[in-house]
Structures are given as C-alpha cells and as structure tokens.
C-alpha cells in the first residue's frame, strides 16, 4: 500500500470517497435498493453530520491542547438553548452567535476547573454533563415557558437562516442571475455511474442550509489554523509537550484556556444548528441524543485531525440520515449490515495476510455474524442506526488502534513549573 501513502492528502481523500461511493453503488446493485446514493440522501447526510462534526472539531481543539472534553454534549445543550433563544429574539444568525457563546460559557467552566485548578478532566466533564441540562431546564422555565408555543422543555419554532445553492455547479443564483445547472444537466442524461456520481454531487451542492455551508467551511479553516498558524502550533504544543512550550516562553495556561473555550464554542454551534428548522425546528430538551458523544467518536475515528473528524462525522451521519428518511420499514438501513459484513471480512483478510490470527478470527467472526444477520432478516429497527456510531468506534479501536494517535498529554493535568 506504499503507493497509496505516497499520494498527496487531497488525492487520497478523493480516492477514499470514490471507493466509498463505489461500494455503496455495489451494495445498491446487489440488493436492488436505490436509496443509498440518491441526492437527497447525500444532502441529508451532510446536514445531519454537521452537528456531529462540530462537536468533534470542538473535541479536537480541546484535546489538541491536552484537555479531554467529555462535557461536549452538555455544551451542545447549552448551545442549543442559547442558540434558540438568540434566534427567536434576534434572528437566525444571532442565534448562531448566541449558541457559540453558550457553549463557550460551559467550556469556560471546564477550563477554570481543569486548567486553573488541575481537576481531573473527566470529572469536570461529568459535572458539566450533570449541570448543563439542569441549567437549560431552569432557563426554559424562566424564559421559554412564558413564550407562546414554548414550555419548560421546548422553545417556539425557529426561523431558518435560508438555503444556499452553489452557482454553476448546481445552478445557484449569483447576484440575482441564475447560473447554469451543470450537475443537473448530467443528471438528466441518465448515464450509468456518471449520473449516479453527479446526483450525489448535486445533493452536496444544491439547496443546502446556510448553517451547513458555514459548518463545512470551518473545516479547511480549522485545518489551516491547527497545522499552519503560530496559534495552532502553540495549541498543539500544549497537548504534546507543555513543558517544552513553557521553556519557549509560551503561556501554556492561556492557550489551553483559548482552545477549551473554542472547543465549547464549536460544540455550541453544533447545538444551535440542532435547534434550526433543517434539523430539529426548535429547542427540545434531550434532543442532542448523545450527539456530543458521537462527536467524540468522530474525533477518535478521525484520528484527531480536522479532515478526519469530518470524514468520521459523515460516516456517522450517513446511517442517521438513512434512518430518518425512511420512517417505518428500515430497509435501506438493513443493507448496511451487508456492507459492514464485507468491510469486516476485508479487515479479516488483511489481518490474515499479516498472520495476525486473533484479529482475523475476531473480524471474520463479527463480519460473518453481520452477513448471517443480513440474510436471515428482512429489516432492522431504527435502534440499530442509533448504536452504529458507537459500534464503529469500538471496532475501529479494536482493529486499528495502532494507527490512532491522540495528543500525548491529553487527559493529564499540567502545572506550570512542575516537570
């Protein structure tokens, strides 16, 4: 596989994405199920993956600075509440800003406890997980309960921030002029494979919610900040070797604070997005549905890299969108079992080549069970969609943990002058 690792990163991603779509096309061809590569599915995946990705990117910032943040889910809840409140009172974009602020506030508590006082990061996270829902419940009681259509668990419905369609690619408007819809043109031709691909591409570029566009635009920005700026380098020093940074005269505490607060802000953005009409329509207690934890999963699967987090979030958003699009009989989801079975068998084969028999047996066993399940049942409940992200993380950790590398000092308390 050395030819593959020698390629440039963007090209590797493209190959990976193409292989993914090909695999889905193959499964569609085997099962005669057309739902997996539809444009609607692509768009819904993008939309549902966004909050997961934002939480994951939040986790990335904190952990790159050496602070584990398992309170992400709590910060999302805060972001969702403040986001809804801001959106109702000052419009959708203010909602986004307030959501970021709400999440950042939660993160500030985490930063004070872990950075200034050196409290165990998991404990502080648990405290935030306990406190955040109580805080929003209290705030809802004081605020939303007095609004028309609100209650102590829900806010009134929110307005959308609008939709966006890429010009030229999918025929979006450009300063009032309707540009040609190139991908749509290919779609109508119905050419084998090409039309499949363009349909997905059109799903990814047409009629996106504004928040989706902002969320994905953040990925290259964060990637750049983390890898190419002085700030990013210093944040990474905090996570890899804080005492080395200290000798350089870097104020480690300040960078840790900044990173953790940014982390909460991103999770808050994810929460605010969840209250948007495109996802949840309003603030609803309990509607983060452990999405903060799924974001943490995306962070791990994505190997603590921004692009990886995005890929992980898309991986988890895909079955989520699939499950939501077909209410009742979860037939398309069912085909995922087939896909999972094949992937696991491939893992088993690759381990067999390395003569790693324990892994071969394990992967082969789970893969075989997955296939057996597929062939002995005709559908699978939505509960399976819910647990899929967690199962994937456990499998990835089981079979690929040597390839994962978390920041060296993540989880450890740091004190100035102590080394």
């Amino acid at each position, binding site marked *: 596989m050395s030819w593959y690792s020698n390629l440039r990163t963007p090209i590797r991603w493209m190959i990976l994405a193409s292989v993914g779509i090909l695999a889905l096309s193959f499964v569609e061809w085997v099962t005669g199920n057309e739902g997996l590569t539809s444009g609607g599915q692509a768009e819904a995946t993008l939309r549902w993956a966004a909050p997961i990705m934002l939480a994951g990117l939040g986790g990335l910032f904190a952990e790159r600075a050496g602070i*584990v943040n398992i309170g992400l889910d709590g910060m999302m809840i805060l972001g969702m509440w403040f986001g809804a409140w801001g959106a109702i009172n000052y419009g959708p974009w203010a909602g986004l800003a307030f959501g970021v602020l709400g999440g950042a506030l939660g993160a500030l508590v985490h930063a004070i406890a872990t950075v200034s006082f050196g409290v165990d990061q998991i404990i502080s996270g648990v405290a935030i997980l306990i406190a955040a829902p109580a805080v929003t419940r209290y705030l809802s009681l004081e605020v939303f309960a007095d609004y028309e259509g609100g209650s102590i668990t829900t806010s009134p419905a929110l307005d959308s921030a609008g939709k966006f369609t890429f010009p030229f690619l999918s025929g979006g408007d450009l300063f009032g002029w309707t540009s040609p819809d190139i991908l749509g043109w290919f779609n109508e031709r119905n050419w084998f494979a090409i039309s499949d691909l363009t349909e997905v591409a059109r799903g990814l570029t047409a009629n996106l919610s504004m928040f989706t566009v902002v969320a994905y635009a953040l990925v290259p920005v964060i990637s750049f900040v983390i890898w190419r700026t002085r700030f990013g380098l210093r944040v990474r020093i905090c996570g890899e070797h804080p005492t080395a940074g200290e000798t350089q005269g870097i104020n480690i505490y300040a960078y840790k604070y900044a990173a953790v607060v940014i982390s909460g802000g991103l999770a808050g953005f994810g929460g605010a997005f969840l209250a948007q009409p495109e996802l949840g329509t309003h603030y609803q207690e309990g509607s983060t549905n452990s999405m903060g934890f799924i974001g943490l999963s995306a962070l791990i699967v994505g190997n603590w890299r921004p692009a990886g987090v995005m890929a992980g979030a898309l991986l988890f958003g895909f079955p989520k969108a699939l499950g939501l699009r077909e209410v009742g009989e979860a037939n398309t989801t069912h085909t995922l079992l087939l896909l999972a079975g094949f992937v696991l068998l491939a893992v088993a084969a690759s381990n067999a080549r390395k003569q790693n028999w324990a892994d071969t047996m394990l992967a082969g066993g789970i893969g075989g069970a997955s296939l057996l399940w597929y062939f002995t049942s005709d559908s699978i409940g939505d509960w399976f969609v819910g647990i899929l992200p967690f199962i994937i993380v456990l499998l990835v950790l089981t079979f690929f943990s040597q390839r994962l590398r978390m920041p060296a000092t993540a989880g450890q308390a740091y004190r100035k002058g102590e080394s």
Partner: protein
Amino acid sequence: MTDLIQSPQAAPPPDVIVVDSGRRRILMALAAPVGAVVFSIVASTIMLLIAGSDPIAAYGDMAKHASKLETQISMINRATPLYISGVAAAIGFKMNLFNIGVEGQYRMAAIFAAYVGGAIALPGVLHIGVIIIVAMLVGAAWAGLAGVLYTHRGINEVISTIMLNGVALGIIAWLVREWQAEGDIAQVGIGTERIDASGVLPNLSWLPETIFRDLKGTGELTGVLVIAIVVGIVYHVLLNRTVFGFELRASGGNALAARAGGIPPRRMALTAMLLSGGIAGLVGIAEIMDKGRYNPNFVGGLGFNGIGIALLGRNHPAGIAVGALLWAFLEASSDILQATQTAPKEIIDILRGVILLTVVIGYEVVSRVRSRDEATRAAARLAGGLA
C-alpha cells in the same frame, strides 16, 4: 521517611510544627466539603434571588420537609440506588479506572433482570436471588467488555464505556419492544412482564414503624436498603481486609510499583472492572422491585450521579453514604419546592453540578496546599536534623 534522614543524635523536630500540622490536617480535611457547601448555599441564594423567590422561605420549606419521617424514609429510598452506584464507581476509581459505563451497565442489567424475573416463577428467596444474580452477571458482562478491551487492546476505558453506554441504550430501546408483556397494551401497560409477588423484595417499613410511629401507608422503606448495606460492608472489607483489596489499592496507587511487586496489572484491571459492573448491575434493583418490571421510563442518570457521589465521598464507604444522602436530600427538596411553589425546583438540579465542581476543586486546592506544607515541613525537619 524522617527516620531515614535523621541521625540518632539529632534533636527532635520542633514540637510546634507537629501540633500545628495535626490541627491543620483536620482543618484541611474539612475545608473542601464545608467550603463547597458554603459556596453552594451562596450560589443557590443568588439563583433564588434572581428567580424572584424568597431564599429564607425556600430553605425553611426544605428544612421543615426534611424533618418529617416520611421525607426521611423517601430520602433513604432515593439514596439506596445512588449509594450502590457510587460504590460501583468507587471500585473503579480505586484501581485508577474510570468506569463511566455504570449508566449503561445498570440499565442493561435491569432490563435483563426484569425480563428473567417476569418469565420465571420460583419460591420467594430463590426468585429474588435469581433476579439479583442475573442483574450482577449482566452488569459484570457489560463492564467486562470494556475491561477486555482495556487489558487486551489497551483501549482507554473512558472511551469504551462511553461507547458501550450508547450501545446499551440502543439495545434496550429494542429489547423493550421485543420483551413487551403479552396481552392488551391498554391493560398491561408498556414494559416487560410483571414480576410475581414472590420475586419482589419485602419492604422494611416495620423498622421505622417499630422505632418511631405508624406510617399509615404514606410511605415504604425499600428492602433494597439491605442490599446497599451489604454492598457497603463487602466493599469496605474487601478493600481494607483482604489481599485482593491491598493489591487493588496498590495497583491503583502506583501501577509500576505494584507490577514490580508481582501483582498482575491486567488481571487486576479486569477483576476491578467486572466487580464494578457487577455492583452496577444492582443499581436498578430498587426500581425493578418498586415497579415490578422494566418500562421505557426506567430511571436514568443514576450512573453519572454515582460518579459524582463517589467523588464527594472520596471513595470511602461511609463518605459515599453521606454523598448519597446529600443527593437524596436535594431531590426531596426539589419536590417540596415544586409542591409549595416557593422556588423553581430546577435550581436544585443545578446545585448538584455546583456542589460537585466546587468539591472537586476544593479537594484539589487542599491537596496542593497539603503537598506544599509537606515540602515545607520536610525542609524544616531536614534543616533541624542537620543542625
């Protein structure tokens, strides 16, 4: 240590320091919890004022409510599962393992125990015994998964137990539908088959009734209290009076030294995880006995709160009990505030988070002051010894 440094002829260290350090030590030990309570009272007063309630009236209501026998019994009932959950988390902490998965473990154990309990019919003690054993086994198995991943794959237990929590909730959502009791839903209600009377632990209401007064059916003291007490005693004895407990504490305290001393780290970690999960399996028993089944409204959050309680109690069996009772008091208070409309009850939930954070911050500050003190003292003694 001082014996090593001091030569036999050296003058003993000045008494002042010893006396001072003794008083100071007690002061320090109390500083964190007392400080946290004071801070929490200040914080809750501010919150009550913002909410437009009268703090004095609210505290008065809480105190009056808590002085009633019925409230005290309901507090013990609430504290029982919290205590078991706290002990489950504490076992992990002693081994330096963070079992965040108590949440998933107890729920998974509860649905299996309720299902098995509803499916079989056995004479009293046996029936109850089967339910308890199933709960412990399922809890241990679910935690054991994380344990094996930790020992054989080196996967961080925090991550794996978080993931297993998510998986457990999904599986339970499915099982609740699969194991729905037979018959008309309108009649049997949503949930697993009801457990026969033989499988339900008798209550202990006779105890307060003989000591204090007749409850007149206004409340029952849960029989699970006995399980909680047994769990507490076993935890204490196991940890402090057995070789295993010593090895566990040694491995948790200094893994490298323990390993050098011949304690197998993998086996200790796996055993600790299995034990923690087994105890976690008991957390749901109180609710099963109360409702006689598992239903979708099964109580949640006991796992996370158990972690908090273990921290409040510093993993000490008695300390955990105090923490559990404090949590139960807050819950009971939230009910009375709701009933009398003196203040929004959500304030109480926020208080839990505030107390937890301030206590851990307090402990951290105290331990920093302590280690600084120790350094100063050691330096003073060293100076005295050399003089």
